[in-house]
Each structure stands twice: as structure tokens, then as C-alpha cells.
């Protein structure tokens, strides 16, 4: 990469290590950001390959390709990899690259810890993936690892799963601490709180969510570990424990976790929409407050995942109303984005296309979420493909589309080259069509009662499932175009100016393209 070449000419004294060691020892936020992003893309492809196995098996009714136990491993590990390996590291990578440049800092505040938080991740996923090849197979109890599935009924490789999750947790906690210290301490003079770019704001709030709930996840897996191997009874009724308590602890982590995966996406969209609408973001302050209220509310809604566990009426009502309350700040955001576009001079570059698709499709996923929040209706929807459709709309067309948008938006700044726009637009349109062919019919089969996580289904779901699988293969293959676009852009292409997009605002556009190895060694003055 030219970034590397240039920086090495400028700073001979700083980083003598070459080849692999350069990446292993690096404490540079841009290097670590790239490592995170490349790792996340790799995991996205591996997790995607598992989704292809799932869709191939579900192409027709009956059992044809894989045995049910392996199918369960695929659904479990697909979920774990996409959540902890693809979405979260992608956001951490973007934070590493962009947060210091957006606030005028020379680097992340704790660069050595930054190096650690990335380099333990590959080991976590190596452990997790390795367990798939061991006798008895990998985790097969769903990414939610409900007890007693993960305690009484799991195999001995569960310890590997537990340690992998521990390492992933430590990695994201260190990453989050780094983001907080950087934003609190390293803002350029004059960069007051209400001048922070929204991506920085949303990441700050996300980082607080991370340090609040990742330790709870670590606690939950530790309890599973001791229940399974050391004779404790946290979740075993025979010893005085309670399996429902597992779900309470897990979802106390799990619900804030879904906002961890969407708040940075809100930040990215709030950055891109004004750029290509050539207007200031509508309602900046309300965006900050809406993000904070979503984060706070996320702590009191966890049991809406558990409506069917036999909760008392009072609990069901409380969690139903609290959940519906979240649509208020989320609605504020969606309206602000639309208001930003209103009467703007909009142009449809690839990042903008992904952002507009995000607004439409994420909102659709939000609406199916509202349907699921209605307790009496949830008894019908619970554990069906309707739920699968819902969370894939908010995670694939939500989180993943925002990551794609962000990647296309900042890629020219990172590499100094414009990407191949024709190929990128092809990637967008193919993804947009196929993702809807993939996930939209899931609403229908779900409402009709097709259960999730089962390798076979009743005959009446056959046609829809064939269609879903075709959409799945098309979406999977389309992502290879993204790999091609990124690779070609890193290798070469038309040179771009410092301010790549004429409507863009922010400190990151004041540094040269490609961004030099060290930026803002002397802090800029923010007015």
C-alpha cells in the first residue's frame, strides 16, 4: 500500500520492523484499523460460507446435505462469527481509523493496548473454529447458548467456546476503553462535546455500553463453565439454581449488545447523509440525546426476549411498553435523516446508496421489531423465521449496509484512490435486490409457523425456502464483488483530492489522501 511506502520514507526511525512483524508490533491506529477491517471481512466471508451451508440444506424439505447436529453447529457458529467476528470488529476498525482523525488526535490514547486488543482476536476465533473439527464438533446450542443446552446437553468442547468468548470479550472491552480515553482526553483544542462528529458520539456511547455489558457476558459464560465442569448449580434446578436465570443474565448483556451493533451504524449514516445531501445534519443535538436514550433504555428491556418463559403479567406489560418506548428516539433519528435529505441537492454516490437503503430497510426491521414487542403477538412469532427476518433486516441491511457505506465513504481517504464506481454500484444493486429476496419471504414463512434453527420443514414452506436460498446464494456471491472493489482500490485507481467528497465536512478531510502514517502530530485548532 502506498500509505505504507510513504510513511516509511518519512519516518525511518519509527518503525524498523518489516513484513509480518510490522503488523504484529504495530501501535499505529491506522495499521490496527486496517487489521481489524481485514479481519472482519475475513470473518464475514467465513460466517457467510456457513450461512450458505444453512441455505443449501434448507433449499428443499428433508435432510440432504448435512446431518442435523452439524446444521446446529452452523447456525450457532454463523451467529457467533457474524456478531463477534464481523460486525463488532468492523466497527472497532472504523473507530480506530476514523476517531483520532475526526477529533484531531495523533493516535489512539493507549496504542499498546490497542495492539493487544486486536491481536488476541484471531486466537479467539481460531479456538472457536478449531472446535468444529474436534470429536463431537463445535458449539451446537445456538449463539445464545441457553442453559441447560450449553451445560447438561453440550459436549466437552464447550470449554473452547467459553474461552473463545472470554477472549473476544476482553478484546472488545480493551477496544472500548481505548475509544473512551481517546475521546475524553485527546480532542483537539476547541473540539467541545457538542462539536464532536456524530460517529464519535455514537462510538463513545457504544463504548460505555461495551464496558457495561461485556463483563456480564463473561460472567454468564463463566457460570456455564463452572456448571458444566466444576459442579456448581447456577442454572441447574436440582442444585437450587434456575435455568430461566440464565436467560435473564444473558439478555441483560444481549439486548444492549444489539445496540452496540447499531449505534455506530447510526453515526456512519449521520455522517454520510449530510455529505451527499449537501446540507448540515438536521437536529444534531437531538441525535446525541436520542442515541443516549436508546443506550439507557437498552438496559431495561431485556426480558422481551423471554415473553414465553412464563413471566408474570406485570413483567410482560412492563417489558412490552419499555420496548415500544425505544421506537421514539429511533423514530427521531429516522426523521432527522429524512429531514436532512429534504430539499438537499442529493447525489447518489455508492456510500449514499447504501445509506438510503439503510434508512428504508433498517426502518422495516424496526417495524417488525415493534410487532415482536407486542407480547400477545410474540407468542405466535417467538422462535419462528419472523424473528430471523427481523434481526437480519436490522443487522444485515442495518449494521452491515452501514459498514459497507462507511467503507466506500472512507476507502478513497485510506488508499488515496477512487474505487471502481461501476463495480461498486453493481455490488450495491445486486446486494440490495438479493438481500430482499433472501430475507423478505422469511417474514411470511415465519408468520405461517416455520420454526428457526431446524434443518427440515413442512412441505408447504418449500417454494418460499427455495426462493430464500436463491436470494442467499446471490447475496453471498455479490459480496465477492466487494472484496474485488476493495482489493483493486488498494492496488490503484484514480488519485483523489484531500477532500474526496465536495459536501464532506470534518477534520479527516483536511489531511492528505491517502492519509499519511502520522496525522495531527500537532493538534489542529477547531473553531
Amino acid at each position, binding site marked *: 500500500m502506498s500509505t505504507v511506502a510513504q510513511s516509511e520514507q518519512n519516518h525511518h526511525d519509527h518503525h524498523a520492523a518489516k513484513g509480518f512483524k510490522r503488523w504484529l508490533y504495530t501501535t499505529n491506529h491506522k495499521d490496527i484499523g486496517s487489521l481489524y477491517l481485514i479481519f472482519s471481512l475475513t470473518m464475514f466471508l467465513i460466517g457467510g460460507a456457513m450461512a450458505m451451508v444453512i441455505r443449501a440444506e434448507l433449499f428443499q424439505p428433508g435432510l440432504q446435505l448435512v446431518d442435523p447436529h452439524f446444521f446446529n453447529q452452523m447456525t450457532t457458529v454463523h451467529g457467533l462469527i457474524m456478531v463477534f467476528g464481523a460486525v463488532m470488529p468492523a466497527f472497532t476498525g472504523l473507530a480506530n481509523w476514523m476517531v483520532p482523525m475526526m477529533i484531531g488526535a495523533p493516535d489512539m*490514547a*493507549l496504542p499498546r493496548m490497542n495492539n493487544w486488543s486486536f491481536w488476541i482476536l484471531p486466537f479467539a476465533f481460531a479456538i472457536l473454529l478449531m472446535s468444529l473439527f474436534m470429536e463431537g464438533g463445535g458449539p451446537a446450542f445456538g449463539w445464545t447458548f441457553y442453559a441447560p443446552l450449553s451445560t*447438561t446437553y453440550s459436549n466437552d468442547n464447550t470449554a473452547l467456546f467459553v474461552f473463545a468468548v472470554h477472549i473476544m470479550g476482553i478484546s472488545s*472491552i480493551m477496544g472500548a*476503553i481505548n475509544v*473512551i*480515553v481517546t475521546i*475524553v*482526553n485527546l480532542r483537539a483544542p476547541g473540539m467541545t462535546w457538542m462539536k464532536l462528529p456524530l460517529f464519535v458520539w455514537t462510538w463513545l456511547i457504544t463504548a460505555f455500553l461495551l*464496558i*457495561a*455489558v*461485556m*463483563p*456480564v*457476558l*463473561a*460472567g*454468564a459464560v*463463566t*457460570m456455564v463453565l463452572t456448571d458444566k465442569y466444576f*459442579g456448581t*448449580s*447456577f442454572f441447574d*434446578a*436440582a*442444585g*437450587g439454581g*434456575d435455568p*430461566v*436465570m440464565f436467560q*435473564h*443474565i444473558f439478555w*441483560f448483556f444481549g439486548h444492549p449488545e444489539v445496540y452496540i451493533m447499531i449505534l455506530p451504524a447510526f453515526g456512519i449514516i449521520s455522517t454520510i447523509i449530510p455529505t451527499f445531501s449537501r446540507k448540515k445534519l438536521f437536529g444534531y443535538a437531538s441525535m446525541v440525546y436520542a442515541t443516549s436514550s436508546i443506550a439507557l433504555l437498552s438496559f431495561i428491556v431485556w426480558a422481551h426476549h423471554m415473553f414465553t418463559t412464563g*413471566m*408474570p403479567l*406485570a*413483567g410482560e406489560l412492563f417489558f412490552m411498553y419499555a420496548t415500544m418506548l425505544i421506537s421514539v428516539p429511533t423514530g427521531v433519528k429516522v426523521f432527522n435523516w429524512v429531514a436532512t435529505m429534504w430539499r438537499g441537492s442529493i447525489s447518489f454516490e455508492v456510500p449514499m446508496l447504501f445509506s438510503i437503503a439503510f434508512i428504508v430497510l433498517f426502518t422495516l426491521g424496526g417495524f417488525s421489531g415493534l410487532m415482536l414487542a407486542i407480547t400477545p403477538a410474540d407468542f405466535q412469532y417467538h422462535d419462528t423465521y419472523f424473528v430471523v427476518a427481523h434481526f437480519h433486516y436490522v443487522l444485515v441491511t442495518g449494521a452491515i449496509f452501514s459498514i459497507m457505506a462507511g467503507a466506500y465513504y472512507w476507502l478513497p481517504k485510506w488508499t488515496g484512490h477512487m474505487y471502481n464506481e461501476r463495480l461498486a454500484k453493481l455490488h450495491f444493486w445486486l446486494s440490495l435486490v438479493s438481500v430482499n429476496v433472501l430475507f423478505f419471504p422469511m417474514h411470511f414463512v415465519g408468520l405461517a409457523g416455520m420454526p428457526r434453527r431446524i434443518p427440515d420443514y413442512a412441505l408447504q414452506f418449500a417454494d418460499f425456502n427455495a426462493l430464500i436460498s436463491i436470494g442467499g446464494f446471490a447475496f453471498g456471491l455479490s459480496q465477492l464483488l466487494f472484496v474485488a472493489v476493495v482489493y483493486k482500490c488498494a492496488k490503484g485507481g484514480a488519485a483523489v483530492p484531500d477532500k474526496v467528497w465536495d459536501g464532506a465536512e470534518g477534520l479527516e478531510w483536511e489531511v492528505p489522501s491517502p492519509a499519511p502514517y502520522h496525522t495531527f502530530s500537532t493538534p489542529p485548532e477547531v473553531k
Partner: protein
Amino acid sequence: MPHSSLLKKLTLVVIGMFAFAFALVPLYDVFCDVTGLNGKPSLEVATESNKVLTSRTVDVSFTTHSQRNAPFEVNSRQYSVNVSPGEMVEVKFSAKNLSSEARVMQAVPSVSPGKAAKYLHKMACFCFDQQPFSANQEVEFTLVFYVDTELPEEIEELTLSYTVFDISEATASNTVAAKQQAG
């Protein structure tokens, strides 16, 4: 704020939240006790009731089932009893070890409707202790309980359910562990 002090505070938050995950375990029980949600009855030995409310009666039914093929058959002698709040009641249960080996049983009680759980007081119950059985042994257990006089008016019947677990392996390994520690 210098990096180190901010880092210290954030690390404390992380450690605190890890501890909070474990604190949720007792908190969860306390919450259920206080609110009476979840039908989780107290496993404490209750004190004797001091008054009887003869103006109303409540039906109390009993049900038992074995979890994970635990080799026990436990049945109450009566299907249900009609009691006045505050009245002391004795119910006999017959229990049998169906296997031809020594086994240890643990019964876990639950009350339905969940709201009624905190109004059911047990003075003697086989669920208070682990119950060792010799091979094919038959035992008679006595349950002594009363329904609190404060039981809300709208509750006219309640069910006391026992889930029976085979905990022979857990107790055996504990004994081994205890022996190793002692040795």
C-alpha cells in the same frame, strides 16, 4: 483527566460489572422472594401459624414429576386438600427408588399461581434435604404446611408441584472432592 486515572476508573467499572453478573444470582432470588414472582417458594422452615381463618377455604393440589428420567416415583396420598388459611395440614407422600442401586433424590418445589408462592409456608418438607435411598427402597415422607391468612382473596386454589431430580452423581463427586481435600 490523565490517561491512567481514567483507565483505572474504567477498569473498575469492568470489574464491577463482572461482579454484578454474579450478584444477579442472589439478586434474582431476592427479587423473586420480595415480589413473589416466578412461583419460587421459600426453602426456609416456617414458624407455626398462630391464627386460623375459618371464613374461607382454599384448595391445595399436589403434583410431582421426575426430571431427566430420575428413577423415582413420588406421589401424594391425596390428590388435593381443602384447607382454611392458617390451618396446619399434614400430607403424606410415598416415594420409591425404581432403580436397583443406591440413589440420592432432591425435590424442588414450585407453586402455581406464582403470586401464591410466598403465602405457602412449609414446616416440614422432604424438599429441605437431599434424600438418600437404598436400592428399590420405599419411603414415606410427611409434608407439614399451612397457607398464610394474608393470602389474597382472589386466589381460591393453588398447586404445589415437586420436580424430582436424581443428584447421585453430583453428591458422589462432591464427596470425592471433599475426601481429596481432607486427604
